[in-house]
């Protein structure tokens, strides 16, 4: 039987949810400036040290979503090796959204961190986070 790709973990690579990929793309563009689709995908692979299971092709759906929401903008241009490619860059609303999302992630990871360090024997005051 054929199984949809995004639903399994193979080996030790992390499964990527749709929203996190969008976030990664935004961050990549914010940090690296204007990039084409291949560039973004390679960058994410490199930065994550290949721990992310990324079918490079899925990036295009992500780019369309982000562009429809107005968080990135696109432009046709010429790549390093003289190929015609579409270059994406983050917009001001995109930066704003990125900042909000980054803040949200930090809060989330902070909470999850504390959750995973939970000590059953430790003295916790009731009601305290």
């Amino acid at each position: 039987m054929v199984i949809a790709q995004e639903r399994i973990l193979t080996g030790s690579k992390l499964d990527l949810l749709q929203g996190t990929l969008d976030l990664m793309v935004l961050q990549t563009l914010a940090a690296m400036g204007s990039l084409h689709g291949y560039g973004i995908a390679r960058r994410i692979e490199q930065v994550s040290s290949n721990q992310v299971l990324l079918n490079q092709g899925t990036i295009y759906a992500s780019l369309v979503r982000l562009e429809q929401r107005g968080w990135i903008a696109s432009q046709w241009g010429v790549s390093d090796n003289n190929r015609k490619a579409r270059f994406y860059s983050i917009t001001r609303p995109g930066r704003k959204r990125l900042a909000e999302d980054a803040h949200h992630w930090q809060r989330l990871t902070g909470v999850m961190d504390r959750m995973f360090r939970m000590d059953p024997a430790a003295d916790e005051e009731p009601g305290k986070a």
Partner: protein
Amino acid sequence: MSGLKQLRRRVWAFFAKKALDAELETELEAHLQLAIDEYIERGVAPAEARRLALVQFGGIQQAREKQREARGLMQIDILVRDLKYTGRKLMRDPGFTIVAVLILALGIGANIAVFSVVNTLMLRPLPFPNAQELVWIAPPPDKCGLSCATYSTDAYDEFRVGSRSYQDVTGYFAFSTPGNLKLSVGNDAPIPATGIDVIHNFFNVLGVQPQMGRLFREEDARNGAAPVIVLTDPWWRRQFNADPNIIGKAFDVNGKQTTVIGVLPRTFDFGAVFAPGTKVDAITPLNLYGPPRNWGNIITLIGRMKPGVTLAQAVHEAAVVAPTMCWNNRYANSCGQYKGAVIPVPLKNYVTGRLRQSLVVLWSAVGMILLIACVNLSNLLLARAAARSKEFAMRGALGAGRGRIVRQLLTESLVLSGAGAVFGLMLAAIVIAWLRTQGAIALPLLSQLQIDGEALGWTLIIAIVSATLFGLAPGLRMAAGNLHEALKDSGPGSGQSRKHERLRSALVVSEVALACMLLVGAGLLLRSFLHVLDVELGFQPARAAAVTVDFNDDPKLGDGSSHDSAKAILDARAAHFQPLLERIDALPGVQAAGITDFLPLSGNRSWGLPYPKGVTLPKNLHISGPLVYVISPGYLRAMGTRIRGRDFNWSDNTSTRGVIMINESYAKWLASYAHWPNNDPVGQVLVNDDKDPGMLVVGVTDDVHTESVEGENGWQIYYPWPQNFGGTPQLVVRSTLPPAQLATSVMAVLREANTKQTAAEFKPIENLVDHANSPRRFFMMLVGMFAALGLLLAALGIYGVISYSVTRQTQEIGIRMALGASASHVRKRVLVSTLRLATIGVVLGAAASILTARFISSLLYDTSPWDAVTYAGMAVSLLAIAALAGYIPALRASRIDPLVALRAE
């Protein structure tokens, strides 16, 4: 970006598909090239570089699809794709498509047509402003119907003055005969037309506005007012060529110069509401204080309640006012006779209330037809789906979810259903247009039939519902199948197809049961109709025909209000008609001829309640008097009504004793109060009040069905033409000659006697009977057609299932034949299985009919809802048709060549 902007982008992306796809292709190509370049830079061989790049990229098609999904309206994409696929598949199988669409068109079309009829007759309000305020004021339904639902002019006055619940009360003269207006243009023969006399406020109460000119005012109806007339739209167009300057022109109508003061709007149809089956050409004002004052109970009452007044209040008030109403203010003892006989009901109920039952039955019947059609289609689709099971298995294996497959099949059903709805709508439009022109059927509001927004909405609903009904079963069946098994080569006899067969057989049994119910209904209605045709009418309609005779009293003789003037007028009438009738009698081929002022089945009025002299009737008798017929000698013989005693003769005139004839029923009732020897009224005297010298009963007639063919017999009383003022004379001739031949000779005689005799039509008496029976006949034919349709569909269903099972069992049959089974044996087996199916269906259907038959018992005449003959006939015909349907596959089975069957798969 707001959701709206996003939506806009998505819609734009949907339409700019090609361009965006091309752009994506460029991007993807660039992406791959960049990846390949990078690998080559690292020293990988170009072919290997390409492979690695593709692996790293992942599925290209999937990337494309995901991108498209993210940017456009995926749902619509899927829908469009499904539709295209469905279209291709249906085109490739034209036989199936045409049959399916045809079945649906018939089922849906019938439903739309019936819905429009039900909507117009039952659901929509009457075509008057604030129609819910209008009420019909009449006694409770009685054995003499409309003829008893009338009031005298004095009674109307009293009611109008004494009631506070109404904005106004109006009425019309209920006893106009067709062709009562004679329009004389130039020197040609006068043209007959039908007119109705109404009280001057008639149009005000109904809320009708003229399209040209004005309508009546109080002055138009007074003594001595100039004659005026209002035209209906069809007559204005037909007779006067839609003359835009018609207002103010005067024409010779019935010998008087009458001015046209207005033209009614096209939407006003008097007959549609008040007199189904008649066409009214013009309306004239009724002078309440002229001669109509003495014509007895002639006005029907219609009132418009004040806003805020409830029906209950109006009913209560009417009961209080009724005792103050007098039949004639000059006869004190005629007051109070309307007590209990004045009850307002909503006008809508009066117009269409008695049709409610029939309409409900019709709607159920047509719903059953649609159900049968859906079951049939479900079966067809199941067979098709079974053949496509491999295709679905493949799709499932390629990643289509169950929902997706069901969706595809539902799309197919919706497309079929949509096509069926479109054709069905066209069919319904044709049927409705035809019905609209059937003025001869005595059903109200037919002329208001149309396909309107509500009908279109209904079409949409039943198209979707039927698609779901017949599409869901095959869809679910298919999606639930085991893909593994389906992909393998599944030979005949596998478990799946046997389950299929059971389902299909069950569906066919239900079809047969439904068809059975329809047949029983149609059969019962047919028997009722035949019983109605057999009713003893009291007269012989065959070979008798009637024509209106034009006669105007000589104005020099006065208006009949004084004793001398009345005598002079009546004598002049006798002097005119006696020789006329003798001449007609003398014509070759004429067996009998006579004059009457009202024909049977045409409505009538009553003149009080004559009772035996010397007898005191109990007070508070709320009974309407006998219907009055003013007739000449020879009339009863021309109608074929028997008399005990003697007929009138011409010596019963103004100089001799007043004589009458009464019918059996009336005689029997009177006899219970009088004490006549042998209970025989012949030779006894009846009086209207204590001072009346009385009338001598010279004959007792057979009971005649005067109000309706199916109703009970009412009372009739006959007065001689030379002694009483009758209405417009109708000449009735009994002859062995065909009407056309008769017409020429009789018309010649009539024209000789009166040069102004209009070229009127000779109407066979049978037409009156047919007209009275027309609603029942029409209804029966409709249900009969539905039953035939249901039978046809059920037969097709049986054929389909049996045929399929024979195909499935080809190998088995081949083996049997190889082992020695004869052709006739094989045939018998198939027929037996067919009849088994049909019998189960018939039994179920009969049981269902027995349970539900009581609901149509009010529509039957003299027929029990459990009439054994009908049920037996239905069972026999259904089984016969089933046997026929199964015979063809049986023949096919018996012709199977065992060698071929065993070799083939």
